[in-house]
């Protein structure tokens, strides 16, 4: 048996995984990264519009700071997030972007003087300060009160991932490409690494490490149409789930992005609307102001997606051979702006639709986009149930996004979480708990179990067609666990997914154990079905509507009974996951539950919301400086690694 040792085994080579590895390396540890694909091809590369960080450099960003970013994030989450984590995140995001700026990301910069932009359909002239010349600029995004989304044209994820990957190469961190973790090696209390399959040769090996980090991205591909890359099949969530002890958090929280093109589901960035684009219906009418007069086309993603679906249900969709859609209109921005700031959008329109977005409307509809749920961890990124198992980025639920993520907060989360969790991983490795004490017998048992499973797949005379089962799963998730949900549909989804899971054990595979795509689908599909079941069951049980989780039969946000986080675990031998709930503590919230301001207010209040609000109001009435007030309401700096506790300098907020 081949055994490979490292201090930190990072599963996933995207932004979060690579940043964790860099943190560990800089603390004197030896990390190694596993990646299904060459690291620069990870799904992080597809992030287009930008990264949120409250730099407050550009005119429309003036007055921005951590407080505003924090509040936008909490409101965006529909109060489902962990406010302490949101605070840590908002505080470190400016540091993360400044680090990336130093390492080589070519962020777009402020040009002092006048420039013309489109806001709410009107051309407006803005004047940028002389002092901001050459500093990082930002664009508008949905659900934010300031222009906070920093960008490199619309290739932000690409620029960030290439810069981080280049640093990983510079710092000589090994990336094991085309390697897949099949199972975590653990004893029920402590994680020791993973069983890893070489996707070229099929060879299995045991990777043993003091700490193991799941940074595998989301699970969008359990849906039929998704903006996600093909590799986002939820295998990281499945790895944790199959330990039988680690829990997944809020798996039913699945985001649908308003503007994916029809029919392929490829994303065009929220930056299209941030820069002044609007949604139109079959009559060419701009309909979002009818529903959301205040935020219009730039309401939170969950809201815009539901309004679009509602408008199509009202008969205002455009019919096409691929079903109904609406139009995204960016023609008013002009060819020069599109060529400079929305060039990927232009390419996508040209190659996949054969249109020019400077002249033509883009056919779009809401499409699965982001997984708020994932491996449940504490604020340090560690699983409370399996020591030595960490997770960060989209794969994790530490829980920054609650039930809806703001655009621009995901790439920001990847690097911020990478920086923070990387430090905590290093702390863990350098503590007495971090010693690697594993018997090779345990590792061998795990490798042999996986080997036997794979051999059984290719020798067993199966009678099920993996492709047919997968298509059915995707259809169920799209039809019954989508944008609008209801009890009867979710019940039938759970029943049918459970049946598919049973049938998936009878999949027929031809071909051998090495580079064999048929075998890969055969072993991944049961894992995808388990992940799909945690999503469907979480959605069935949660009889309220919050953020992206919308129950037509329970349209109110019910803080009284559901201000909590779903935890899913899958005990060995069980046919279904077990769900439990973790309460959110209202009395410790800096921003007590309130109304987000979309549509009509429909909230069943939490009994502690009003008393906590009174405390918070009293504090704000005292008019202390913002740092003192914040620290009194919900102190968080002690949870940050020492090196990231310093204040962030801004043009209007010099360092003390």
């Amino acid at each position: 048996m081949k055994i490979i040792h490292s201090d930190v085994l990072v599963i996933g080579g995207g932004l979060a995984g690579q940043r964790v590895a860099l943190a560990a390396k800089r603390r004197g540890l030896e990390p190694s990264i596993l990646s299904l694909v060459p690291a620069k091809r990870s799904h992080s590369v597809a992030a287009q519009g930008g990264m949120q960080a409250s730099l407050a450099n550009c005119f429309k960003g003036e007055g921005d700071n951590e407080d505003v970013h924090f509040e936008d994030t909490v409101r965006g989450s529909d109060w489902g997030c962990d406010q302490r984590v949101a605070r840590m995140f908002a505080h470190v995001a400016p540091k993360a972007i400044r680090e990336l700026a130093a390492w080589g990301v070519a962020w777009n910069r402020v040009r002092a003087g006048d420039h013309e932009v489109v806001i709410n359909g009107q051309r407006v002239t803005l004047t940028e300060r002389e002092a901001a010349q050459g500093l990082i600029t930002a664009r508008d995004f949905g659900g934010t009160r300031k222009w906070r989304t920093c960008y490199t044209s619309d290739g932000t994820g690409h620029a960030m991932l290439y810069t981080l990957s280049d640093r990983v190469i510079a710092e000589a961190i090994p990336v094991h490409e085309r390697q897949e973790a099949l199972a975590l090696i653990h004893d029920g209390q402590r994680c020791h690494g993973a069983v890893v399959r070489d996707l070229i040769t099929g060879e299995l090996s045991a990777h043993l490490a003091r700490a193991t980090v799941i940074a595998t991205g989301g699970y969008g591909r359990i849906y039929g149409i998704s903006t996600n890359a093909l590799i986002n099949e939820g295998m990281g969530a499945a790895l944790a789930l199959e330990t039988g002890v680690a829990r997944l958090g809020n798996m039913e929280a699945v985001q649908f992005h308003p503007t994916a093109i029809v029919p392929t589901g490829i994303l065009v960035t929220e930056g299209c609307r941030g820069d002044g684009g609007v949604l139109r219906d079959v009559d060419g009418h701009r309909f979002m102001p009818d529903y959301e007069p205040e935020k219009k086309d730039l309401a939170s993603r969950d809201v815009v997606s539901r309004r679009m679906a509602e408008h199509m249900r009202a008969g205002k969709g455009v019919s096409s051979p691929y079903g109904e859609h609406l139009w995204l209109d960016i023609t008013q921005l002009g060819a020069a702006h599109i060529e400079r700031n929305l060039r990927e959008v232009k390419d996508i329109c040209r190659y996949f639709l054969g249109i020019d977005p400077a002249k033509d409307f883009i056919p779009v509809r809401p499409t699965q986009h982001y997984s708020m749920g994932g491996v449940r961890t504490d604020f340090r990124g560690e699983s409370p149930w399996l020591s030595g198992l960490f997770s960060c980025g989209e794969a994790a639920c530490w829980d920054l996004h609650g039930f809806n993520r703001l655009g621009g907060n995901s790439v920001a989360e990847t690097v911020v979480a990478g920086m923070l969790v990387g430090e905590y991983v290093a702390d863990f490795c350098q503590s007495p708990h971090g010693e690697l004490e594993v018997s090779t017998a345990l590792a061998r048992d795990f490798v042999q179990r996986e080997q036997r499973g794979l051999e059984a797949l290719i020798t067993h005379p199966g009678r099920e067609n993996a492709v047919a089962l997968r298509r059915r799963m995707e259809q169920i998730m799209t039809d019954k666990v989508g944008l609008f949900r209801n009890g009867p549909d979710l019940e039938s989804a759970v029943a049918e997914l459970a049946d598919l899971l049973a049938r998936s054990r009878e999949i027929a595979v031809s071909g051998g154990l090495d580079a064999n795509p048929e075998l890969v689908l055969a072993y991944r599909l049961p894992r995808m079905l388990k992940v799909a079941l945690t999503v469907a069951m979480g959605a069935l049980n949660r009889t309220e509507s919050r953020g992206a989780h919308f129950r037509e039969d329970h349209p109110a946000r019910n803080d009284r009974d559901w201000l909590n986080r779903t935890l899913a675990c899958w005990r060995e031998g069980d046919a279904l996951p077990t769900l439990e709930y973790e309460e959110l503590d209202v009395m410790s919230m800096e921003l007590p539950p309130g109304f987000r301001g979309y549509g009509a207010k429909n909230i069943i209040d939490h009994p502690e919301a009003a008393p906590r609000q009174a405390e918070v109001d009293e504090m704000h009435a005292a008019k202390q400086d913002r740092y003192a007030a914040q620290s009194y309401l919900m102190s968080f700096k002690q949870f940050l690694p020492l090196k990231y506790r310093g204040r962030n300098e801004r043009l209007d907020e010099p360092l003390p």
Partner: protein
Amino acid sequence: MPRTLTFHVFRHNPRDPGSEPGVREYQVEEASGMTLFIALTRIREEHDPGLSFDFVCRAGVCGSCAMLINGRPGLACRTLTSELPGTISLFPLPGFELIADLSVNTGKWMRAMSERLQAWVHLSCEVNLNEIEAAMDPDLAEAVYELDRCIECGCCVAACGTALMRPDFVGAVGMNKLARFRLDPRDDRSDAEYYQLIGDDSGIFGCMSLLGCQDVCPKELSLQTQIAYLRRAMARQGL
């Protein structure tokens, strides 16, 4: 009336002693908006579950799916079948290690190239993350991003005469990277240091200016211009 497309696809597994390199034929009914990603997925699902190929983003941004499409390097995911004749031949990208069928190991090649060319920003010192970032000229930032748009797909290497003759040639991808870092004020290397990396026939002086790289670059990077400028700067170093 939809066309029936005939695909001639290269099949070979170099790790299987029984495998002979060859071409298999598949028929697929064309659908509107069909890309080679959709067509190949259909072939795998309906005709040949063992067919290997690499798609990740399927949106033209990750660089995984470069292959020879009727003899020309290109990204399969964003190639519409409607722009191709009824008979389509698909071969793996030359110049890279074959994994199986249409799948080649571009990742390994690119990492080796990056290590050899030290293709990262060489920082003089770490910055204080609490402080306002250093200002950068907005036009220069855009010019750096322009060169940073390379997706390491390997098309330029597959289309390069020198790369086919010299396996150690760094290709347009490598030279474009150094052009990008040379332009970047955050990288403090001098031309003398760049000369040490590419001042020979496996680098800047190996280019025969055949322009194949620029012709096939899916991101339409100005590769020949970059190589020309770099060659002039490196020639000055050699004097």
